[in-house]
């Protein structure tokens, strides 16, 4: 731990501390859950995940979290991604290539319109 010797030191530590506090307390509006089971990774889920991260950075979004989960059990449709907005029922997408990821980001997450072409129908729907 650093020793604080000046106002600047304290300011720097305070900014770091505030960032850590935000990490702990921020509640996101949007959650993107990527299936990262063996079939998911084999089908390119890592690239999909990275594309989502790039998009978030590119669009400077602060209210989105990206989480990983295990196998969704939909191997033929991998990579599988769930999008949850404002605690609404999750929308599950299949065959989410990096290209599809961009569409989901722009049309669904930012535009509010589900990308029907990739949606996997679920019971909840």
């Amino acid at each position, binding site marked *: *731990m*650093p*020793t*604080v*010797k*000046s*106002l600047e030191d*304290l300011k720097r*530590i*305070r900014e*770091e*501390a*505030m960032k*850590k*506090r935000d*990490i*702990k307390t921020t509640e*996101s509006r949007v959650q993107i859950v*990527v*299936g*990262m*089971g063996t079939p998911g*990774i084999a089908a390119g889920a890592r690239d999909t*995940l*990275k594309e989502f*991260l790039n998009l*978030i*950075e590119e669009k*400077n*979004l602060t209210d989105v*979290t*990206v*989480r*990983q*989960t*295990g196998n969704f059990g939909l191997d033929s449709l991998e990579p599988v991604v769930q999008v949850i907005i404002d605690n609404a029922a999750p929308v599950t997408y299949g065959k989410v290539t990096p290209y599809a990821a961009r569409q989901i980001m722009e049309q669904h997450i930012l535009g509010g319109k589900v990308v029907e072409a990739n949606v996997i129908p679920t019971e909840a729907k």
Partner: protein
Amino acid sequence: MKFFRSHVLVSVDPQCLDMGAHEIVDALNDELVAWGLIDEVQVLETSRLGDPARFGPDLVVYPENVHYANLGVDDIPYLVEEHFLKGRIVEKFRAKETVVTDDELGAPKAKEVRIVLRNCGKIDPHNIEEYIAEDGYQALANALTSMTPEQVIDEVMRSGLRGRGGAGFPAARKWQLCRQVPDGPKYLTCNADEGDPGAFMNRRVLESDPHSVVEGMILAAYAIGASLGYIYCRAEYPIAVANLNVAIEQAREFGFLGQNIFGTDFSFDLEVRMGAGAFVCGEETALIASIEGKRGEPRPRPPFPAVKGVWGKPTNNNNVETYAVVPQILLKGADWYAAMGTEKSKGTKTFAIAGDVVNTGLIEVPFGLSLREVIFDVGGGIKDNKKFKAIQTGGPMGGCLVEEHLDLPLDYEALTAAGSMMGSGGLIIMDDETCMVDIARFFMEFTQEESCGKCTPCRVGTRRILDILEKICNGKGTLADIDQLELLCEEVMKNSLCGLGQGAPNPVISTLKHFREEYIAHVVDKKCPAKVCRALIRYEVIAPTCTGCTVCARNCPVEAISGERRQVHVIDEKTCIRCGICAQVCNFDAIAVLS
């Protein structure tokens, strides 16, 4: 801005470092690089996450908020592959217990303003960074780098802050006196020996926000020119002591305590001293004696501690709450603080509300709120829709106030003028089923027990007062006893050495003043109007209501109730010990209490 999907906070508390926390950070980074995840997951070092003795080297992963504990370097490759690559929580590494968070306080109630309690339950008391994120140590930095000690005193003086221990002496005035004494070295003491029955304002702050007390003490030390401080905390508060020690250790680590704080030539350090349970050690001269390792007994003043205190050197003593509020005053300015409260009592005060009220617990309100607002708005009114009878303010040495005082503003002067006092902030609310003679006896029993015995008026006087009160409660009192009581109270008050003896008769004097008819009922009519004093009450079966169910007879511990099944039962007054169990168990309200 760089976006990370996940953050790992690793505890680098000194104890965790000893157990290999740095190696874990390195291993995490290596593994993340190896899997190509380093652009997605950020590893951050932080202060404590949980007790290192139980959780070992630990880390928390966000956004999932998963706490992994007791980790070794060898666990990291598996953890990274499972959690960060495959997104599976590794149950076997998860902490077995959850870190206890403090949610005792709850959300602020109506009319509450939280300044002292602002961080309680909000921040992790073990993690100095969380305090810093809430502007912690900012006031200290500002004061040390841009204010002279005189300016600090001046700012606190203008805020109108008064000592929260009970007497309400202006805090900055006390600091000034101590600063002006030409002797040295100077010491600082913090009175954390909170002993009033039912009061726990200070415990909450010490346990949940210890850094605010530490920062306030460093600021006061700077103002006075003190080099060492003692926090005198009662041993009955083990969590407070533990959290204070953690806070002091962390403040040292960050350089807020120790040599050349903030690169200036000001140096200061803190120690925690534990009391052994004597109530009188809350008195400042007794507290100082106890810190020195002597018997905790008060001595006559003057010389005041500002001149001769710890180790015979100038010492400033304040209460926990006084110190805790100082950083906020310096941060937000004297005007901000002085805008709250009444003309002579500025700011806010914490109170512990207990007794027959709906919302018992801690509150923090601005001075000047009326007792009515505190009892009925903040406290939610009297329990079970009963009637308000009295409120004891100022703890066992305070006095009781009644209906006619309900619109008094809560401030130092108003309470003193009404014959009670502010004290440290205990409020005990009593409903109309309370016997005031019994209450006076209860408080007297407490102060008599806690009298240190050094001076005769307090040692013998409190004993004699208690004897008379017991005699009255037992139905053996006479009118002459009441006169005797008044005389004794006056003498004990005038002649005792310290605040304990001087304040001890207060509950008797104030109950005599407001409820004299209850005393007279006890000694002349041999009745206890509130039906509390056992010697003066009797239980009787109400014949028309009794169904003869035998419940009372079966539950009576001394077999004082007789009667056949389905027949009216009878209580034998001679055998009855007035425990009241029969009235409690009766399903038909067929037992009456008479006096």
